[in-house]
């Protein structure tokens, strides 16, 4: 279970991907993933917003995560 990190999320974690497969308790949902991030890297709690994309789509908090999903952390976007 690999998570892609972009923008400031990369700076907060200190790398561009995060491997969750070695965790004892893996997050089962988007909500659990966000809780894990906030607990493990307090920098996330200071952001204006935090979203998660699963398979290239913004994901609702209740979405269940599967091992083969492409997961990405989406800090506040600022294109344009």
């Amino acid at each position, binding site marked *: 279970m690999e998570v892609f990190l*972009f*923008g400031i999320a990369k700076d907060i974690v200190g790398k561009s991907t995060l491997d969750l497969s070695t965790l004892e308790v893996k997050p089962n949902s988007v909500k659990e993933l966000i809780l894990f991030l906030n607990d493990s890297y307090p920098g996330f709690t200071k952001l204006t917003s935090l979203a998660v994309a699963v398979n290239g789509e913004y994901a609702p908090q209740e979405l269940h995560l599967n091992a083969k999903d492409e997961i*990405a952390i989406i*800090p*506040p*976007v600022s294109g*344009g």
Partner: protein
Amino acid sequence: MKKPIIEIVDAIDTAKVYEELSDAKSGGICVFVGTVRDFTNNETVVSLEFEAYKTMALKEMAKIIDQAAAKWPLNKVVMRHAVGVKKVQEAVVVIGVSTAHRDACFEACRFMIDTLKDTVPIWKKEMFKNKTVWVSAHP
């Protein structure tokens, strides 16, 4: 609507966008170009750096065009965003649309750039002389 041009590129060629939007059914073309400004909050900007989650960004850009096409009768659309380091005066995004009448092209163009800034997973880092800031990251 003809198939839109949706791209994430290393550098934007603004000169070609009219040719891409030119259309016999259109009386109006509206183009917005976002460029790097030399000052932000009274600080000198050296450059901007853009990073994209490319596959998802392209999907979100396509959604924006679909939403605009549902609101206004569009003939041709170009939506192109740059990634990488961009210096002052360089183009970072270009959104253009051709429509039969000018109302629709202005409104659709405005809607598309506003929505792009809200939803497309692209991130901008401002490079000042002594620091860098991820735009909008913090309240």
